[in-house]
C-alpha cells in the first residue's frame, strides 16, 4: 500500500513540475504584453478572485480521487449561498449564522449525495445530476429570483477584507482549507481509503475498508468544502442572486484535473489542485490583460481545459501500458 502511494506521488510530482512551467510561461506572456500584470495588487487580486473556486476544487479533488464526480457542485454552491443568506438576513444578519449554515447545508447536501451513491448504489453521475436539479429548484423557490444585499461588516470583511491591509482574507481561508485537506488526504485513514476507492474499489473491500462509509464521508467532506466556497462567494459579492457561482464547477473540476487529479480516480494531490486553480485564475486574468476579444476568451479557456483533460487521458493510458509491461515482466 505504501509503495503504491509513493509511485502515485512520483507521477503527481512530474505533473506538478510541468504545471509550474505552464504557470510561469503564462505569467511571462501576460507580462510581456502588459507590464502591470506583475503588479502586487493584480497578483493578490488573482488569489482573492480564485479563493472560493480553489476551496471548491479541493473538495472536488477528494471526490475525483475516490473515482466519483459531483455535478451538483455549482448549483449546490448557489443553493447554499442563497438559503444560508436568507436565513442569515431573517436572523438579523448575524455573521455566525451565515458561516455555520453555509457549512451545515453543504455537509447535508454532501450527505444526501453520499447516501445515494454509497447506500443506494446509484452512479455518482446520476445521483449528483438529480441533486443538481433539486438545488436549482430550491434556489429559485427560496430566492424568487430577487437580488438582495448583505449589509454586515463582518461578512464584508470575509468577502473583501485584507489582513494587514495586504493579504486578502479569502486567500488565508484557502490556505487553511488546503492545509486541512492535505492533513486529511495524507495523514488520515480517510485519505488512504480515498485513494484505495479510486484505484480499485473491490481490492479496497478485500483489505477491510468499509467502502460505503468512506464514500459517504468523501461526499460529506466535499459538501462542507462547497459550503465554505459558498460563504466566500456570497460574502465577496455582497449580494444574493440566483446566478451566483455560474461556471464555478467547470473551473473547479478543471483545476483539479489540470493539477494532476485523474478523472478515473486513484490519483491526485492537494498541491496539484492549488497549482491548477492558479493556472485557471492566471489564464482568465491574463486574457483580459492581453485584451483578447471577449468572445474569444471563453473559447481559449475551453481549449486549455480540454488540452489538460486530453493530456490526463493520455497520461493514464501510458501508465496503464507501463503497468501491463511490468506485470508481464
Amino acid at each position: 500500500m505504501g509503495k503504491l502511494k509513493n509511485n502515485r506521488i512520483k507521477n503527481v510530482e512530474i505533473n506538478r513540475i510541468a504545471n509550474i512551467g505552464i504557470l510561469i510561461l503564462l505569467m511571462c506572456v501576460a507580462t510581456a504584453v502588459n507590464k502591470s500584470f506583475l503588479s502586487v495588487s493584480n497578483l493578490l487580486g488573482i488569489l482573492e478572485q480564485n479563493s472560493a473556486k480553489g476551496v471548491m476544487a479541493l473538495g472536488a479533488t477528494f471526490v475525483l480521487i475516490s473515482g466519483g464526480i459531483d455535478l451538483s457542485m455549482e448549483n449546490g454552491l448557489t443553493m447554499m449561498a442563497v438559503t444560508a443568506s436568507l436565513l442569515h438576513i431573517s436572523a438579523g444578519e448575524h455573521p455566525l449564522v451565515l458561516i455555520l449554515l453555509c457549512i451545515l447545508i453543504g455537509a447535508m447536501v454532501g450527505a444526501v449525495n453520499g447516501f445515494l451513491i454509497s447506500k443506494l448504489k446509484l452512479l455518482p453521475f446520476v445521483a449528483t445530476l438529480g441533486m443538481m436539479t433539486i438545488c436549482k429548484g430550491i434556489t429559485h423557490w427560496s430566492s424568487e429570483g430577487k437580488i438582495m444585499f448583505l449589509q454586515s461588516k463582518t461578512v464584508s470583511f470575509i468577502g473583501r477584507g485584507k489582513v494587514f491591509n495586504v493579504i486578502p482574507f479569502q486567500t488565508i481561508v484557502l490556505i487553511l482549507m488546503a492545509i486541512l485537506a492535505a492533513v486529511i488526504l495524507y495523514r488520515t485513514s480517510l485519505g488512504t481509503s480515498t485513494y484505495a476507492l479510486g484505484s480499485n474499489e473491490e481490492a479496497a473491500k478485500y483489505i477491510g475498508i468499509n467502502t460505503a462509509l468512506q464514500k459517504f464521508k468523501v461526499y460529506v467532506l466535499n459538501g462542507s468544502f462547497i459550503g465554505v466556497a459558498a460563504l466566500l462567494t456570497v460574502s465577496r459579492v455582497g449580494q444574493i442572486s440566483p446566478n451566483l457561482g455560474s461556471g464555478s464547477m467547470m473551473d473547479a473540476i478543471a483545476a483539479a484535473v489540470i493539477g494532476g487529479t485523474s478523472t478515473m480516480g486513484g490519483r491526485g494531490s492537494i498541491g496539484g489542485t492549488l497549482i491548477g486553480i492558479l493556472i485557471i485564475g492566471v489564464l482568465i486574468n491574463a486574457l483580459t490583460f492581453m485584451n483578447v476579444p471577449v468572445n474569444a476568451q471563453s473559447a481559449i479557456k475551453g481549449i486549455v481545459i480540454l488540452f489538460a483533460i486530453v493530456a490526463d487521458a493520455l497520461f493514464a493510458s501510458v501508465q496503464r501500458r507501463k503497468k501491463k509491461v511490468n506485470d508481464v515482466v
Partner: protein
Amino acid sequence: MKKILSGMLILALMVTMLVSCAKSDSDTSKTQESEKPVDSVAPTPSDKKMVIGMACINLSDAGLVLIKNGADLAGEDFNCELIWKACEGNLDTQIDQIRGFIQQKVDAIWLDSCDVAGVVDVINEATDAGIQVLTAGSKVEAKANYNLIYPDFDDAFFAGTVVGEYYKDKTGTVGLIVGSAGNLVSEKRQEGFTAAIKNYPNLKLVSGMGMWDANTSMTVAEDIVRSNADLLHMHIIADGMSYGAYQGIQNAGAKITISANDGDNAALDHLENKEYLFDNVVGNERLGYWGIVIARRLFDGEEMATDQYLPTYKVMGEEMLTFVKDHNLTEINGVSYATVTIDEARKIVSSESYRKEFDATFVPTK
C-alpha cells in the same frame, strides 16, 4: 451510519422550515423588488378569459423574474391565465415547449426567443394554427408574428455617445461588461455601445463577459481596472451585473464613472448616491406588463402594427441631465431619446405608474 443519516434528515427538515420562514421575513428587507400594486389603479378585467403560453429563456435571471412579476400582474388585471415555461437557453427545448402550447390550443404565445432564426418555423406553425405569437426583445422575421421591441441597439448607442462626449477631451480606456456570447440582448447592447465608441478615437474599448452573474462581473471589472491604468469609465449592459461590477471597481480602488441599463430600483439608488453616471429605464416589470396588455388587445380584436415599441427613458442626475441637453444628445442620428430625473424614473417603474400607462387609454403602435 443510521444515526448520522437520521440526524441529517432532521437537520434538512429544520432548514427547509427555516427557509420557508426566511422567505416571508426577508420580503421586508432591502431588495430591488417593486412595491405592492395599488388596487385603486387596477384596470377592469375583460370578461372572456385568455390563456397565454409564456416561453422564456430562463426564470432565474433577476431581470426575467421581474418581467414575470409584471406579466403576472397584467394577467390578473386583464383576466389572462399565464402558463410559464423556461428552456434554460436550449433552442430544442424552447421549440418543444412552443409545440406543447400549440397542442394545448392556447390563445397566444409570448416568446423570449433564444435564437431569432431558430424559432421562425415553429412560430409559423403556431400562427398557421390561429395562435397569436408575440416575440419579446428582438425582431423575429416569421410570417405573422408581432414583435415587442425595446430599442437595445439605440439605447446602447446613446450610452456610448454620452460616454464619448463626456470624455471627449481625454485619452483613455472605456470598459464594457457584456452578458454572454450568443445572447441576443447582450449582443445588441454590445454592438450599439461599440459602434458609438468607435466615433471617439481618443477612447479605447476593452470588453469582458459577466455571464449575467454579479460574481463573475465583479471579477471581470477588477481585471479590467487592474489591466488599464488609464480607465475612465465602465459600462455594464444590465443592472443585475452592475452591482457586482461596482463592488469590483471599489475593491480594485478605481475612481471611474459607471453606467448601466434597465432602470431597476437598486440601480436608481446608485444613481441617487452619484455612484452611477446614468442608466436606461426599461423597467423589467413594466416590460412584462406591457407584453400582456398587447396580447390582450390583439385577442380582443384590436388592430395594430406588427412591430410594437416600448418607450425607454434615459435617467441621470440633474448635472448629467444638463450635460446631455447642452450637448444636444437627446437626438442622435435622427433617433430621439427621452430623459427623466431619478424621481420620475422611480415612478415609471412602479406598478402604480405602469398600470396607469397601459390602461384603457393606452394606444399601441398603429
